[in-house]
């Protein structure tokens, strides 16, 4: 029994090209030449057929290979609008456990769709291996081609290449894991009642954004392992004498006891769900498992939340570039191209501030503009570019773009690559909103003195760490009422909104004992304090 197993590489593919292998094919330094020009353009009716999709897909694939796009194998699936709404509602995944909030989402989506307020998703693509892309039945042939280029080659290569996805998600096992999660939750509903499971899931969902490890690489998920281990875990967790229960009052003098009492946890914990899963005194084993499931799912989506601009921009850049190349090579008909471009133009439209349609930066537009500009800087740098990006000017654009896609997240990508030219094109400006001042101040605009400030501000705007309140587990009162203390460290003195109390109720439900939340401002003083005691609510 004393054998030590190295399980760190379990479930990891052996071949270097697959996920988990550290190596990936080196990017091409220049596009490969076209093998031969086609004799005729592809047929271009507005209705698609399976044969046509196959034909277009072959050309798109061949074109993508010329640019060295490295992707998971593709699986294209034709679905109906209703199925698209189904997928929408369950956070884009083909399977998921049952929860009322997904039902709500579905009802809202369906209603908007029926009223015609909303076009349905352009595409849904799942970060899995093989990579599943949904093509909607209603799309025209041109749209199908666009979606294939966008999702099956753009997003797919991003999922496979970007470091966050490589580090945090395991594309080969996510579907398996969700099947496991769905069955487990269903089994729990049967055993413990739908209400009990629903309450638990509600509470977990409230903390979903606080269920991710930000710095530690998570272990792999895989169905077979999960099934085998879930049982062990339950049994083990049950036997495990909980840290919080075990601590008997030591027979020392009272003063001494206070002095000696070790802090628990020893350091503040940022992963609230993990802490609760491991330490909540009253949770039953199945409840811990569900907390774990929610945590794992949150972890899976964490990279997507950090790479909106990069991911969408990358896919948009590539559908644009692939389709244009195909047109230049003589594959695409004028009509198809016009329709694709029209759609593309809609996608990358950025309404200016004050416009009725304005709702913040459009990640498609920003990402597309940035990748396009990187390519331009490589190919035709100006004096300004040579000053700002000396390394990039004149280098191979494929290599530079590949590097930019693989090694950044939104925050660092913008910090690194947002060029003055793009800032000017978007006419970006920064506004400082300080509640101690009576008015807002324009702190930077797209001019020589403002570029750097603007870039920094923009980069911060995409930093999840400052976008979401920083809330951590501070301590547990081991000697007294076993209450849990959470601490919110204010960033720039920004307070929590009033929903915090509601969330705290959920924390208290999971913890089982009183829960406090302190909001600490920049001066280190407690600005506000909430308390929920589950025994009285």
């Amino acid at each position, binding site marked *: 029994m004393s054998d030590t197993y190295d399980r760190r590489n379990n479930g990891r593919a052996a071949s270097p090209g697959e996920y988990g292998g550290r190596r990936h094919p080196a990017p091409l330094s220049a596009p490969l030449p076209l093998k031969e020009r086609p004799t005729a353009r592809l047929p271009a009716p507005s209705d698609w057929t*399976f044969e046509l*999709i196959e034909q277009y897909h072959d050309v798109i*694939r061949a074109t993508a290979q010329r640019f060295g796009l490295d992707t998971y*194998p*593709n699986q*294209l699936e*034709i*679905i109906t609008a209703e*199925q698209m*709404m*189904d997928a929408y*509602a*369950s956070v884009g995944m083909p399977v998921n456990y*049952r*929860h*009322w909030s*997904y*039902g709500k989402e*579905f*009802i*809202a989506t369906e*209603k908007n769709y029926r009223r015609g307020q909303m076009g349905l998703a352009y595409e849904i693509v799942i970060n899995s291996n*093989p990579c599943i892309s949904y093509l909607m039945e209603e799309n025209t042939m041109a749209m199908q081609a666009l979606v294939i280029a966008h999702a099956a080659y753009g997003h797919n290569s991003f999922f496979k290449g970007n470091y966050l996805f490589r580090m945090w998600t395991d594309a080969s096992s996510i579907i398996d894991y969700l099947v496991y999660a769905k069955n487990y939750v269903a089994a729990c509903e049967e055993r413990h009642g739908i209400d009990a499971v*629903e309450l638990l899931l509600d509470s977990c969902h*409230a903390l979903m954004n*606080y269920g991710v490890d930000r710095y530690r690489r998570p272990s792999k998920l895989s169905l077979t392992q999960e099934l085998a281990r879930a049982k062990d875990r339950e049994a083990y967790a049950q036997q495990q004498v909980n840290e919080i229960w075990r601590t008997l009052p030591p027979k020392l003098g009272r003063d001494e006891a206070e002095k000696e009492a070790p802090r628990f946890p020893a350091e503040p914990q940022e992963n609230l769900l993990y802490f609760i899963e491991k330490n909540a005194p009253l949770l039953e084993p199945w409840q811990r498992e569900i907390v774990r499931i929610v945590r794992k799912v949150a972890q899976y989506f964490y990279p997507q939340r950090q790479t909106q601009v990069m991911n969408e921009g990358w896919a948009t850049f590539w559908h644009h570039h692939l389709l244009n190349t195909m047109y230049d090579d003589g594959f695409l008909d004028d009509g198809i191209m016009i329709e694709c471009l029209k759609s593309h133009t809609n996608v990358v439209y*950025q309404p*200016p*501030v*004050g416009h009725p349609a304005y*709702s913040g*930066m459009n990640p498609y537009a920003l990402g597309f503009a940035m990748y396009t500009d990187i390519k331009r800087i490589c190919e035709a740098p100006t004096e300004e570019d040579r000053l700002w990006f000396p390394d990039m000017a004149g280098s191979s654009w494929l290599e530079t773009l590949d590097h930019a896609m693989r090694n950044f997240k939104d925050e660092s990508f913008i910090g690194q690559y947002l060029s003055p030219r793009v800032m000017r094109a978007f*006419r*970006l*400006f*920064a*506004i*400082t*909103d300080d*509640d101690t001042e009576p*008015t*807002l*101040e*324009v702190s930077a*605009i797209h001019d020589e003195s403002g570029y750097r400030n603007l870039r920094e*501000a923009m980069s911060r705007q995409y930093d999840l760490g400052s*976008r*979401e*309140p920083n809330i951590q587990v501070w301590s547990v009162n081991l000697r007294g009422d076993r209450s849990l203390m959470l601490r919110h460290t204010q960033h*720039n*003195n*920004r*307070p*929590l*909104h*009033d*929903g*915090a109390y*509601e969330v705290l109720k*959920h924390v208290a439900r999971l913890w089982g004992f009183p829960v406090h939340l302190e909001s600490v401002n920049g001066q280190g003083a407690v600005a506000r304090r909430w308390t929920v005691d589950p025994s009285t609510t």
Partner: protein
Amino acid sequence: MQQIIDRRLAGKNKSIGNRERFLRRHKEQIREAVRRAVEGRGIRDIAQGEDIHIPKRDISEPVFGHGQGGSREMVHPGNRDFVRGDRIERPKGGGGGGAGSGNASDSGEGEDDFVFHLTKEEFMQVFFDDLALPNLIRTTLAETPEYKTHRAGFSSDGTPNNLHVVRSMRGAIGRRIALGSESRRELHRLEALLEDLRAQPGTPARLHEIEQIEADIAALRSRIDRIPYLDPIDLRYRSRVRTPVPTAKAVMFCLMDVSGSMDEARKDLAKRFFILLYLFLTRHYEKIEIVFIRHHTQAQEVSEHDFFHATETGGTVVSSALVLMEDIIQARYPRGEWNIYGAQASDGDNWHDDSPRCREILEQKILPLVRYFAYIQVVEQEQNLWHEYSDLAMESENFAIRKAAEVDQIYPVFRDLFKKEGAAK
């Protein structure tokens, strides 16, 4: 590895389980909405969906987020004429001029209701829940009219038990003849030729020719033999189509006491009783007419709206309604053509000497004409009408009475009806 999968036929309604959970969670609001809808609807319109409004705050999912205040810097596109250092008035509501990071507080969104549509099935489910209907009854009620299958020609696909052997074989013979005709013609020609050659004296060249022709003949024979005796394309199946069973006509009489003692709650109870009867009848009859008779000291036939909404005061003479009902039956609904049902709701109040007369009219004139007559009393207290009726109910088969002070007590009235219907089948 590249593949396109057609998923359009698979996995429809994947979200149905999620929808159920959503409905479960908001059961109270939905029940309330259904109750209101039942009050507002006509009996005939009961089996429809309904829009449900739920206040947004009831379905929110809280998460930690930033509130107003503190200092923050937001980047926006589309600068027109700002330069650095410009001061801008704080927009009303205190926001930083946009929902940039999605952390703007919910309070700005207003208290819009979350509206969604309850389907007909879901609506009926909630309605039945209120009435405490047993499951078996629910399914029979929700069921569409019965269908009968009958034959309608032949089709090229079907299940083996519908295989039509004669048709299939006929097709097979035709196909065998058609496919083999060319070969057979050639065969006959060669055989005739062979005959000729054999008749002539055999030189080596001719013998060689005979050999060759014999080989050709053998090849043709085997080709003819290879034509399958029965091919899947020969198979013919008896085609069956479903048609609704033709059903007879029914008329339903709703009798209600509208004297001053019947308040809104009692009327609502009565309405549910009528609705339920109507639903039972829709299961059996294609065409149902409803006659509304209200009465106090006098009875009159009225529209549905007046039936439920107009209020009258005064005493009560129940027999007046029964007399009117009988008159209408005699005038408009000959017994041979119509299945007649009666439903009466009252608070049991009646002018003292009238009750025996009611019993008499029912027993002698009405009950012989109707398939079923149900009486429901919406208060507990027993008065002389109740006593008279309960005596009668003991004796007659097609008369049921019940007291129902709450909606879930209505159903037992129908239990007898179903017993009878079940026995008749």
